[in-house]
């Protein structure tokens, strides 16, 4: 039984179309992340589910119930935002039991509901602290506890880790996912951080200009991006090349300005224009020539140390490629002559537009 379903939902703000006829189903108990560049409509996506924003067109179902006209407070949702909204004059405990207290008007009942959830969240410490005495990460946990204790079984999270130090956020995101799973909630989590989404989501919605570009598991988005935009957005610094299919046999030969790539044939015809996307980590450098397909001699133009990895800018026959390798895979110096092996690539039908437009964030 799908927990959340959007059918042909459209929302405009004046000229700007924030949601353009989108349909999506989110299953009960799923942790779904929504990603996309600024202004893609991801926050509006969350707001129409919450009921804060009304769509012009389309239906929104929560547990198979049409909720278009259901007020926010009757949707059993918890909304957590980047700006942590706790009552500053109330201690942690008062903050978390506020919901049930208002609903039941009974301290005993509110405390009982509160205790059970707080115990499960391992939030027993420092219940009598004021919000400002806690780190932002813990404040956000309190905000989530408050939402859960208020009876929400659907958590809507809008950049919940956005204002938290990146290091702390990396640990918190795992806690957040585990919490949602332990409490058997459904979560929809909007983030601009694709690594965050890849790390914790069961499924990811990739949005652009109010449309859904792809909806799938992190693995599907990474290994089978639906289009060049997704290939760029999930992964980053992907190499894009325009080419023509030179021959289509058991392998596909793609001619990119005279450079021939032999790739897995996913059904393209000879003469067809294509876009080839090569992830930086799918090019391997070596100082000796290896056997096999797609081995090119290259020159290292730039070397950047990223800690975990090295990033190289290399040149093959006048074409530049970004390459990423783990630090332990060896280091190649600037200006050195190397061999580059292209181990994997994604091929897309050329949409006819300028490639910059196809992958643009705007």
């Amino acid at each position, binding site marked *: 039984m799908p927990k959340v379903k959007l059918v042909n939902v459209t929302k405009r703000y004046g000229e700007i179309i924030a949601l353009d006829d989108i349909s999506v189903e989110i299953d009960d108990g799923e942790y779904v992340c929504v990603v996309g560049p600024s202004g893609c409509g991801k926050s509006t996506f969350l707001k129409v589910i919450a009921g804060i924003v009304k769509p012009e067109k389309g239906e929104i179902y929560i547990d198979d119930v049409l909720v278009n006209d259901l007020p926010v407070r009757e949707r059993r949702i918890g909304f957590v935002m980047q700006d942590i909204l706790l009552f500053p004059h109330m201690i942690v405990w008062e903050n978390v039991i506020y919901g049930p207290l208002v609903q039941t008007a009974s301290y005993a009942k509110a405390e009982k509901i509160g205790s059970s959830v707080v115990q499960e969240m391992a939030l027993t410490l420092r219940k009598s602290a004021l919000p400002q005495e806690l780190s932002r990460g813990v404040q956000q946990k309190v905000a989530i506890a408050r939402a859960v204790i208020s009876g929400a079984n659907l958590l809507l999270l809008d950049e919940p880790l956005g204002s938290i*130090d990146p290091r702390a956020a990396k640990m918190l995101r795992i806690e957040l996912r585990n919490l949602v799973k332990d409490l058997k909630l459904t979560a929809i989590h909007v983030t601009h951080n694709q690594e965050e989404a890849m790390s*914790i989501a069961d499924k990811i919605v990739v949005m652009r200009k109010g449309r859904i570009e792809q909806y799938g598991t992190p*693995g599907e988005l990474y290994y089978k991006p639906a289009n060049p935009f997704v290939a760029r957005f999930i992964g980053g610094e992907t190499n894009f090349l325009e080419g023509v299919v030179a021959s289509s046999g058991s392998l596909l030969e793609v001619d990119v300005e005279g450079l021939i790539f032999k790739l897995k044939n996913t059904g393209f015809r000879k003469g067809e224009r294509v876009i080839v996307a090569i992830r930086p980590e799918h090019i391997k450098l070596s100082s000796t020539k290896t056997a096999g397909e797609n081995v090119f001699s290259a020159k290292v133009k730039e070397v950047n140390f990223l800690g975990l990895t090295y990033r190289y800018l290399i040149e093959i026959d006048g074409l530049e490629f970004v390459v990423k390798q783990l630090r332990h895979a060896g280091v190649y110096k600037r200006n050195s002559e190397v061999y580059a092996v292209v181990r994997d690539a994604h091929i897309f039908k050329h949409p006819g537009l300028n490639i910059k437009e196809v992958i643009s964030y705007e």
Partner: protein
Amino acid sequence: MIGNMEALFVDSVSKKYGSIRALNNVSFRVDKREYLCILGPIGAGKTTLLKIISGLLLPDSGRIYIDGVDKTFEAPENRGISYMPQGYALFPHMTVWENVAYGVEMRGFSMDRAKEALEIVGLYHRRNSYPHELSGGQQQRIALARALAAGTEILRLDEPLSALDVLIGVELRYELKRLAKKLGLTVLHVTHNVEEALSIADRVLILKKGYVQQIGKPEHVYLNPVNLFVANFLGEVNVFEGLLKGARYGNSIVDVNGLGEVYVLSRPIDKWHVVVAFRPEDIIITDGESRYDINVFKGVILNREFIGALAKYQIAIGDYTVRVYSWNDGKCSFDAGDSVTVYFPPHRGILYPYPREGLLKMLEVEGL
């Protein structure tokens, strides 16, 4: 003696705000055309340091030499330092030309400078466009041109990329470095983003609580961090507290409670109470038996994060949760619940004396 290769010399600078010591005897030199990144958590003194170098603040003691000349008490506009603000702060209602010419006119310079600066960044042909008609990269180049037109060789960048979409910021930082090199600028780039600093800096300076912790080439500071703070700040580390038992085969042997003997290739240290650190990418996971007979431990995968090329594991080994990163090359991949063998290569470990302020305090991440 100060050679003419030196753009900046910060000599023993200290600054207090009331009882808070913002900078403590900070000294370092920056070569001409060098790209220096200044890294540190919030409250480390990065902004105070930049203000003192630019002349917006006077130090309590110490000197600032620019191009070999003492400029400690010189007005900001006479120091030869220009500034590109966060998010570029271009005037949206002005054309590219007006944006760049504005500062030139304010300073009473010839308009040729504006033209020249735009030509350098390759956008003179877009002079009649408005900022919103340009891409993020072009806007960055305009902001840079505006800073350049002010006619200085030292460029101060304060979190220049942090207001941008993450991925765009990544793509633009390499362009920023390339331009700085092409134009022969000396750059002081303040950032809290470790990867950004490591990836484009010639050298990185790490500040903590007003003290310079370390200054050096990115690889050097990452691989040879002087203390646990630097090790942990520049990248994640797994740390194990233990007692130094002795040495064998050039390795120090540390007895780690609940884990047993851990070998680390290191120079001997004269403290018994020690900490061993291993970076997550330096640890090796296998599913079978290890071919090594030291530093091999049995564990269970607790959590796996799939981040494209990278797999990030949390592994339970005894009472410890160890983080291990490996490349997703399709060859070996583990799921939560899998039993694994974990090997800590001794030559990749780092040994430190146990920190006086305690381990937790040293590794605190909040407030970074």
